[in-house]
C-alpha cells in the first residue's frame, strides 16, 4: 500500500506531508506539531486506531478480489460510453487541438470530476439516513492518523468505488469520443498528475492531528485542518467541509468553513451506531441501523429510497443516531428577519470571530421556532412543529403585484418579497391591479460590512432579505416571516422568476418581456397573436384567425410556423419535434396560460436550439399553496364557447392541480354552399408535487406533470383570389369542403428540484411529448399550374377554368382538373432530460448568478403523406377512384446535447448613494451538438449529419441613475439544419447586436416607463425551409435553402404611463412600436416561393416595416375597461424591394379590441370582450395559398368564479 502510487499513504506522500508541515509551520513549530499530531504513540495505539487497522485488513481481502474486475469494468464502461456516443452522434473528426492541450484538459476535467463526485457522495453520506449509517464508521474514529482514511465500511467503500468507476468512465468515454483516442491523462507515477500533486501537498495530514491551515488559500483548497474540523464531534463541524481537494464545492453548497486557529480537540461521534473500537461492531452496526430504519420508519425510508433511486439526490430524513443529516440539524441558523434586515453571514467571517458554538449557534433557520431550543443531534424533522395555516396577505397588499399562483401569500407577502420574486405589475407599463399601485421601492438590502479577513465570500443568507441577484432568472425562494408558516412551494417560487416589469424598470442585461396572468385574464384573448401584439420586435403572420397554428417571428427571424423561435412550455421545448421538424403545429390554449415570456438578445442563449430571434416561454398554472379553484365560461358570436376550470390544493408535503379547458367555434369563414369552418380544442393538465419541508435548509421537490390535448379544426390552406377578397373576404371555396385537421398530444414530465436557500438550486426534468396529427386538406390540382397562380389569375385561360372548378361553377372534366386532397399524417415525439443549476454567490460588491444548463434531447418525426384525387361534380367533391398516392414517407430524427453557462454579475455599490450606479454583466455561452438522421423510405435513402455549434453572448446593463438604465449586448444567433438536407445546406447563423435604454420615473400618483432598444442582426447565412404553408410542393417539403448574408435592423420602443386617481381610479396609457429594416446582401435564385429571384438589397418577406400597439385602460375599484389598437404595416409576400406589387402585398391594417370587466362579488366577475371593434376586413397573409382574412367583429361575454 505504501508503495502504491494510487494510495494516499504512498511513502513519498507521507514524507512530503511531513515536509510540508515543516515548510508551512516552520522547522520548529512544524516538528513540534508533527510530534503532537502524528508521531505520537497515542494515535497509533488508541483502540480507535486498532479498528482502523482491522478494517484496513478486512477490506484488503475484498480489494484484492475485486481490483482486476473493477479495472475491467471501468474500461468496459468507458468504451461503452465512447461507442454509444459514436452511435448516437456519429464519429468525430480528427481533433485539431494539440496533444498537450488535450492531455491537460483531460487531466484537469478528470481531476475536477473526481473531486466533485467525491464531494457529492460525501455530502450525501451525511444527508441521507441510510448512507449516514455506514459513514458513521469513518466518523467514529476518535483519533486521526493516515490510516483512518481506510476506516470506512465496505458498503461505503463500494459506493466510492462505484463513483470512481462512473466518473472515470463518463469523463474518459466522452474524451475518447471527442478526441478520438487522443485524450491521454497526464500522470505522475501512474496517477492523475493533479491528484498526485494534491496528495503530495499534505493529503496525509488530513487524517492526522497535525493542525495545518492554509489561511486565505483555504477558500480554494481545503486544508488538513479543515478536514480535521469535519471530524470534530460537534454537528456544525461535521456538516462542514465535505470536499477533498477543492473548496469550491463547499462554497457553492454553503458548507465551507474556515479552520479555527485552535486545533479541534475531540473527534468521533457521541452516539454512533457501533462501538468505535470494535471492527465487528463497525461492520455490523450500520446494517442493524439500516434495518431498524427500514422497519420503524419505512415510510420515510421508502420515500428516501425512492428519491435516491429515482432522482439520485437527496433525502430529507435524518438518522436516528449520531449526527443527523445536514438539513435535520442546521448548525448555522439565522434569526428571523425581515426584508430590511441585512444578510447575516452564517459563518464566522474571520479568525477574530470565535468559532461557532454548539450550544449557541449564531443563527437559526427562519423556519425553526425562534424561541425554541436549538436542534439537537437526535432531533428528527418529524419532531418539528407542524406549520401553521397559511395566512392571507394583508388586505391592503397589492395583490396584483403578487399573483397568488406565483408567490404563496402565506410565505411571501408582497410587501416583503424580494424584488426578483415579485412578478411584474403588468408588463411594459400595464400594471395589472387597479386598486393599489405596485411597490414603489424595491427593498434595498444593506450588505454587511465586508469582513476584513480571508472569509469575505458570502455563502448563503437564510434570512428574508438575502439579496437576490434580481436577474432574469434569479430564483429566490420566498422566505417566511418568523411567525409565518413554513409552507413554501418552491415550484411556485421558481415560477415567480421575473423577467421584466418589476415594480420599477428592470435592471437586466438583454431585452425580455413578460405578460403575466393578470393581463392575460383581463384581455381574455384566446389567440396568441393578439397576446403578443404588445411585445415589440414580434412579427406575426396570422393564418386561421384563431391562432391555432401561429406563425411567430422575432426580430426578422422567419415567422413560418414559428420554427425559428425556441418555443417552450414551462421551460421545456414545446414544438412536436424541435430539432427534426420545428414547425409548431401544436400550441397550447392561451386561456390556460398564466404567463408568456419573450426573450430576445443575449438572454436567448439560455434557450436553444434557435437563438436567432429568441425564445418564448409559455407558463402554465402552478400548483397553488392552498385550495384554489376557478371556472370561466363564455359564449360568443358564431358558436363560440369557452369552458375553463381548475382546482388545486397543497398539503405540507404535497400539492395537486387539475385543469381543463375547451374552446370551440363554428368559424367566421363562409364555405360556399354552407358548412362549418370552425374548430374544437380541448386540453387537460394535471400536476402533482411531493416536497420536503420547505423550511428545511435543503429543499427537495418532485413534480409530475401530465397533459393531454386534442383538436379538430376544419381548417384549410386555401385562401381566395384578390378579386373575391375585395368583395367577400370571409368566403371559403367549396374546394376546401373536406379540409380538416385532427391531432392529439400527450405530455409527461417528471422534475426534481433540490435547493439550498436561495444560494444554490438544481432542477432536472425528464420529459416526453407525443404528437400525432392528420391534416386532410386541398393541396393542388393535378394540373401543374400552381394554386397561387390560379388565384392570381382567376379570369383567363386555364387558370380561369381551374378557378371555376375550385369554386364549384365548373365540374372536373379532365385529370388536370382533379383536386388532389392530401392527408399529411405525421407522428412526432420529443423527449429528453433538461437540467439547470443555479449558484448565487455574493462577494462584497458583486452579486452573481451562475447558471449551468445541460439538456440531452431526442426527437423524431414520421411523415406519411398521401394524396387522393377528387372530382368536383355539382359542387360536391367525389372520389376520382384512382389509387391513393403516397407522396412522402420518411423519418427524421435528431439527438442533441446542449449545454449553456451564463453568469450574471451584478456589480453594486459603485457609489455611496443608496441608489447609485449598478452594472450588470451577463456573459454566457451555449454549445449544441446535434446529430440528425433522415430515412427516406420512398427511395430507400438514408443520411445523417453531425453539427456542433458554439453560441456565445454577452449582455451589459448599467443603471446609471435610479431612473435611467442603459443596456447593450451581442450574441451569436443559430438555427439548426433539419435532417435530410443536401450537403451544401448550412445552418442559420448570425451575430446579433442590441443597445438601448430604459427610463422609469415615479411620483406618488404616476409611473412612467420608457424603453428603446435598437438591434442589428448580421446574418452570415439565413436559411429558409420549404413547408406546405409557404406554398412549397410536396417534392420540396422540408428542404432547406441557403439565403446567404442578410442584414436585419430596427428599433423597438415601448412607453407607458399610469396615473392614479382618487378613489382608486386609474388611467393606463401605453404604446409600443417596432421598426424593422432588412436587406439581402447577395443575389440568388431560390426554389422557396417566399424568396424566388432575390437581388441584393431586397427585403425579407413577411416582416412589416412598422408595427404599432396602443393601449388605453381606465378603471375603478370594481371595474376596468381597456381599448387596444394594433397596427401592422404592409408586408411583402415575396422578397423584393421598392413598391410592393398588388399581388404580393399584404396591406397594412389597424384593428381595435375592447374589453371590460366588472367584479360582481369578491369571487365572481363578468366580462365582455370585442375583437375587431370596427369590424375591419383585413388581410393577414397571402400564405399558404392566397389571401386570407383576420377575424371580423367578435363579441363574447363570460363569467368567472374563483375560489382562492
Amino acid at each position, binding site marked *: 500500500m505504501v508503495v502504491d502510487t494510487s494510495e494516499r499513504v504512498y511513502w513519498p506522500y507521507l514524507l512530503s506531508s511531513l515536509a510540508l508541515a515543516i515548510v508551512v509551520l516552520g522547522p520548529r513549530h512544524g516538528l513540534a506539531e508533527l510530534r503532537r499530531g502524528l508521531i505520537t504513540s497515542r494515535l497509533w495505539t488508541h483502540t480507535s486506531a486498532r479498528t482502523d487497522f482491522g478494517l484496513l485488513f478486512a477490506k484488503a481481502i475484498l480489494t484484492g478480489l475485486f481490483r482486476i474486475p473493477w479495472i475491467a469494468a471501468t474500461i468496459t464502461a468507458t468504451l461503452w460510453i465512447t461507442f454509444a456516443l459514436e452511435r448516437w452522434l456519429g464519429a468525430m473528426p480528427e481533433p485539431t487541438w494539440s496533444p498537450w492541450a488535450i492531455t491537460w484538459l483531460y487531466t484537469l476535467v478528470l481531476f475536477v470530476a473526481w473531486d466533485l463526485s467525491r464531494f457529492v457522495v460525501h455530502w450525501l453520506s451525511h444527508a441521507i439516513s441510510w448512507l449516514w449509517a455506514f459513514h458513521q464508521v469513518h466518523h467514529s474514529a476518535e483519533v486521526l492518523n493516515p490510516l483512518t482514511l481506510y476506516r470506512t465500511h465496505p458498503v461505503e467503500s463500494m459506493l466510492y468505488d462505484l463513483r470512481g468507476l462512473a466518473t472515470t468512465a463518463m469523463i474518459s468515454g466522452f474524451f475518447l469520443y471527442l478526441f478520438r483516442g487522443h485524450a491521454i491523462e497526464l500522470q505522475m507515477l501512474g496517477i492523475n498528475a493533479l491528484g498526485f500533486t494534491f496528495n503530495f501537498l499534505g493529503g496525509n495530514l488530513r487524517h492526522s492531528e497535525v493542525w495545518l491551515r492554509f489561511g486565505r488559500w483555504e477558500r480554494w483548497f481545503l486544508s488538513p485542518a479543515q478536514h480535521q474540523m469535519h471530524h470534530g464531534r460537534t454537528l456544525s463541524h461535521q456538516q462542514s467541509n465535505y470536499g477533498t481537494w477543492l473548496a469550491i464545492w463547499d462554497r457553492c453548497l454553503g458548507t465551507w468553513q474556515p479552520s479555527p486557529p485552535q486545533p479541534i480537540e475531540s473527534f468521533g461521534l457521541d452516539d454512533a451506531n457501533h462501538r468505535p473500537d470494535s471492527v465487528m461492531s463497525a461492520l455490523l452496526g450500520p446494517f442493524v441501523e439500516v434495518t431498524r430504519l427500514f422497519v420503524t420508519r419505512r415510510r420515510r425510508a421508502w420515500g428516501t429510497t425512492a428519491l435516491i433511486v429515482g432522482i439520485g439526490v437527496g433525502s430529507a430524513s435524518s438518522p436516528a443516531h449520531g449526527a443527523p443529516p445536514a438539513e435535520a440539524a442546521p448548525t448555522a441558523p439565522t434569526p428571523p428577519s425581515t426584508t430590511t434586515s441585512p444578510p447575516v453571514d452564517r459563518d464566522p467571517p474571520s479568525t477574530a470571530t470565535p468559532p461557532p458554538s454548539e450550544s449557541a449557534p449564531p443563527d437559526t433557520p427562519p423556519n425553526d421556532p425562534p424561541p425554541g431550543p436549538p436542534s439537537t443531534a437526535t432531533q428528527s424533522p418529524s419532531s418539528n412543529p407542524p406549520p401553521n395555516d397559511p395566512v392571507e396577505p394583508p388586505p391592503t397588499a397589492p395583490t396584483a403585484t403578487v399573483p397568488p399562483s406565483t408567490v404563496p401569500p402565506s410565505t411571501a407577502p408582497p410587501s416583503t418579497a424580494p424584488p426578483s420574486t415579485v412578478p411584474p405589475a403588468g408588463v411594459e407599463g400595464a400594471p395589472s391591479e387597479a386598486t393599489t399601485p405596485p411597490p414603489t421601492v424595491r427593498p434595498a438590502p444593506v450588505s454587511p460590512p465586508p469582513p476584513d479577513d480571508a472569509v469575505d465570500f458570502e455563502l448563503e443568507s437564510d434570512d428574508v432579505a438575502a439579496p437576490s441577484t434580481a436577474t432574469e432568472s434569479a430564483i429566490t425562494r420566498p422566505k417566511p416571516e418568523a411567525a409565518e408558516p413554513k409552507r413554501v412551494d418552491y415550484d411556485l417560487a421558481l415560477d415567480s422568476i421575473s423577467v421584466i416589469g418589476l415594480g420599477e424598470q428592470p435592471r437586466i442585461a438583454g431585452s425580455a418581456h413578460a405578460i403575466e396572468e393578470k393581463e392575460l385574464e383581463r384581455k381574455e384573448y384566446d389567440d396568441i397573436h393578439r397576446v403578443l401584439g404588445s411585445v415589440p420586435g414580434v412579427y406575426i403572420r396570422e393564418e386561421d384567425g384563431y391562432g391555432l397554428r401561429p406563425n411567430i417571428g422575432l426580430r426578422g427571424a422567419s415567422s413560418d410556423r414559428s420554427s425559428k423561435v425556441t418555443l417552450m412550455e414551462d421551460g421545456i421545448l414545446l414544438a412536436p419535434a424541435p430539432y427534426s421538424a420545428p414547425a409548431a403545429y401544436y400550441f397550447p390554449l392561451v386561456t390556460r396560460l398564466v404567463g408568456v415570456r419573450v426573450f430576445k438578445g443575449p438572454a436567448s442563449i439560455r434557450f436553444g436550439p434557435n437563438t436567432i430571434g429568441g425564445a418564448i416561454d409559455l407558463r402554465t398554472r402552478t400548483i397553488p399553496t392552498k385550495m384554489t379553484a376557478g371556472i370561466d365560461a363564455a359564449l360568443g358570436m358564431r358558436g363560440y364557447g369557452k369552458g375553463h376550470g381548475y382546482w388545486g390544493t397543497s398539503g405540507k408535503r404535497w400539492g395537486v392541480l387539475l385543469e381543463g379547458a375547451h374552446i370551440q367555434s363554428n368559424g367566421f369563414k363562409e364555405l360556399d354552399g354552407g358548412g362549418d369552418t370552425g374548430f374544437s380544442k380541448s386540453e387537460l393538465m394535471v400536476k402533482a408535487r411531493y416536497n420536503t419541508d420547505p423550511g428545511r435548509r435543503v429543499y427537495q421537490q418532485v413534480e409530475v406533470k401530465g397533459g393531454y390535448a386534442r383538436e379538430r379544426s376544419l381548417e384549410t390552406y386555401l385562401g381566395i383570389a384578390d378579386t373575391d377578397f375585395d368583395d367577400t373576404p370571409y368566403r371559403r371555396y367549396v374546394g376546401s369542403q373536406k379540409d380538416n385537421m385532427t391531432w392529439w398530444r400527450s405530455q409527461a414530465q417528471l422534475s426534481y428540484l433540490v435547493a439550498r436557500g436561495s444560494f444554490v438550486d438544481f432542477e432536472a426534468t425528464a420529459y416526453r411529448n407525443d404528437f400525432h396529427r392528420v391534416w386532410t386538406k386541398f393541396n393542388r390540382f*393535378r394540373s*401543374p*399550374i400552381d394554386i397561387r*397562380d390560379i388565384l392570381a389569375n382567376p379570369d383567363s385561360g*386555364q*387558370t380561369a377554368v381551374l378557378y371555376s372548378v375550385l369554386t364549384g361553377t*365548373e365540374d372536373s*372534366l*379532365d385529370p388536370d382538373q382533379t383536386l388532389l386532397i392530401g392527408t399529411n399524417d405525421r407522428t412526432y415525439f420529443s423527449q429528453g432530460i433538461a437540467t439547470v443549476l443555479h449558484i448565487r454567490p455574493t462577494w462584497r460588491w458583486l452579486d452573481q448568478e451562475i447558471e449551468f444548463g445541460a439538456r440531452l434531447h431526442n426527437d423524431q418525426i414520421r411523415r406519411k403523406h398521401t394524396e387522393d384525387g377528387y372530382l368536383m361534380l355539382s359542387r360536391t367533391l367525389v372520389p376520382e377512384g384512382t389509387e391513393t398516392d403516397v407522396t412522402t414517407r420518411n423519418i427524421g430524427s435528431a439527438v442533441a446535447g446542449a449545454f449553456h453557462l451564463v453568469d450574471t454579475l451584478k456589480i453594486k455599490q459603485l457609489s455611496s448613494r443608496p441608489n447609485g450606479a449598478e452594472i450588470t454583466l451577463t456573459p454566457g455561452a451555449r454549445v449544441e451538438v446535434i446529430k440528425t438522421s433522415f430515412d427516406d423510405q420512398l427511395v430507400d435513402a438514408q443520411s445523417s449529419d453531425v453539427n456542433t455549434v458554439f453560441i456565445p453572448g454577452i449582455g451589459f446593463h448599467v443603471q446609471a441613475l435610479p431612473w435611467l438604465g442603459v443596456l447593450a449586448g451581442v450574441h451569436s444567433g443559430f438555427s439548426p439544419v433539419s435532417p435530410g438536407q443536401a450537403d451544401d445546406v448550412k445552418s442559420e447563423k448570425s451575430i446579433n447586436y442590441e443597445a438601448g435604454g430604459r427610463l422609469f420615473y415615479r411620483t406618488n400618483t404616476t409611473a412612467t416607463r420608457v424603453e428603446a432598444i435598437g438591434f442589428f442582426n448580421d446574418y452570415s447565412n439565413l436559411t429558409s425551409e420549404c413547408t406546405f404553408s409557404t406554398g412549397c410542393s410536396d417534392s420540396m417539403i422540408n428542404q432547406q435553402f441557403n439565403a446567404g448574408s442578410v442584414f436585419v435592423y430596427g428599433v423597438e420602443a415601448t412607453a407607458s404611463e399610469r396615473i392614479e386617481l382618487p378613489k382608486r381610479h386609474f388611467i393606463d396609457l401605453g404604446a409600443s412600436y417596432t421598426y424593422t429594416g432588412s436587406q439581402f446582401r447577395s443575389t440568388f435564385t431560390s426554389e422557396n416561393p417566399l424568396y424566388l429571384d432575390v437581388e441584393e438589397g431586397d427585403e425579407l418577406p413577411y416582416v412589416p416595416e412598422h408595427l404599432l400597439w396602443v393601449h388605453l385602460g381606465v378603471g375603478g375599484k370594481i371595474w376596468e375597461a381597456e381599448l387596444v389598437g394594433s397596427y401592422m404595416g404592409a408586408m411583402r409576400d415575396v422578397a423584393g424591394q421598392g413598391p410592393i406589387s398588388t399581388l404580393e402585398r399584404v396591406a397594412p391594417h389597424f384593428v381595435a379590441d375592447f374589453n371590460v370587466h366588472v367584479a360582481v362579488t369578491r369571487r365572481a366577475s363578468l366580462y365582455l370582450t370585442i375583437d375587431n371593434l370596427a369590424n375591419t376586413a383585413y388581410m393577414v397573409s397571402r400564405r399558404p395559398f392566397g389571401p386570407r382574412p383576420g377575424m371580423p367583429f367578435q363579441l363574447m361575454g363570460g363569467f368567472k368564479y374563483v375560489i382562492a
Partner: protein
Amino acid sequence: MEEGSEGMEGTDSSRAETSSPETTTDGEPMTVDAGDVLTSVALQVVVPTMEAFVSATTELEAATSAHLADITATPDDAAETLATTQDAFRRGMEAWQMLEVMQIGPAGAEATVLAGESLRDEIYSWPSVSTCRIDQRIADEGYAADDFFSANLINAYGIAALEYLVFEHGSDHTCAPQVQLDGPWTALGVVEIERRRSAYAQVLAQELLRRASDLASRWSPDGGNFAGALASPGEGTSPYPDETTALNEIFRAMFYVDKLAKDAKVGRALGIADGCAAVPCPDLFESPYAGLAGPALVANLRGLQQLVTGGADPATSAGFDDLLVAAGQPEIAESLLADIAATITLIEGIGDTTLQALVGSDMASVQAIYDAIKRITDTLKGPFVMTLRLSVPSEGGIDND
C-alpha cells in the same frame, strides 16, 4: 449574335452562306454560340411554323364559312363541305401541334413563362374542354353573342371546341341531368342543332384565325418582332436578360414533350401517369372526336425536332445539336435526333388506327410509343441539360413513373 431586329434577315442569309452548323469548309466542327441558336430558333423555327398555322387557319375559316353557308342553304346536303372542313381542321390541328412545343413568350402561360400571356389557351385549351358548355351555348346560341369570348371560359372555344363541333354530330347533348338541358336541346331539332354547330364552328374558326394572325404578327420581324426579342436578349425591350435565360425558356417549352406528350397524352391512358382509375383509359387520349392523337404526337415531335436542329434545313440553321457538337458531345445530338425520328416512325407506323382504338387491342404498341418518347425526354433531362448547362424546369423535374 449581335445584330438587332433590323436587318436580321440579311444577316441570316449571310450566315447561311458562310457557316454550316455542322462543319466548316475545312471539315472542322463549326463553332456555334447561343445567340446563333436563338436567332435560328426564332426565325427559322417559330416564325415559319406560325406562318404555317396562320395559313392553315385561314383555310379552316374558309371551310367553316363554306360549310355554314352550305348547311344553311341545304341542311340535308352539306356533307361535302363538312368533309372539307374536317380536312382543313386536321391540317390546322397538325400545324398547331407543332407550335405546342413552342410556347415561348406570349403563347406561354402567364404565370410561369417569361412574357407569357397565355395565348396558347385561347387557341387550344386541351385538356380543358367542356362539351356540355358547348352544347349549352348551342342551345342558347350564346356563341353568336358579342361578348361570347369574354363571357365564356376557354373550355367552350378554341381548337378543341372546334373539333367537337366539326366531328361530333350526334343527336344528344353531353350535359349531366342536373344541368337540365334536355328540354331546350330537344326543342331545337336535329337540323337546327347541326346548323348551330356549323355556325358555332365558324365563329370559332374566325376567332382562331384572328388569334393565329395576331400571334404570328407578334413574332414577325415585320410586326411585334418577338423573334427579335428572343434573338437579342438583354437588348431593347427583350424580356430575356441574357442568352442563358432565353435558351432556358426554349428548353422549358421543349418539356411539353415530357409533361404533355408523354404523360398527359399517352401515359394517362396507360395508367402510368395519374388520372386513370381503370386502366386503360382510352377517353383520356387527345382529340377523341377527330382521332388525331397519333398525328398530334408526331407534330409535337416534329416541332421538337426543329427546336433541336434550329430549323428545317440543317445546312442553314443553328440549333441545340450544334451547341452539343461545339461542346464535344455530338453523340448526344445524334442520339436525340435519332430517337425523335424513330418515335415519329413508330407512331406513323400505326397507320389510320387511332390510339383510342389501339390501346384497347394492342396496349403494348401504345406502351412502346410511351417508352420511345421517354427515351427522348430522358436524354433531355440527362446528358442534354448537363452538357448545355441548362435548367430543368420545375414541372419537368420529376417523373411519375
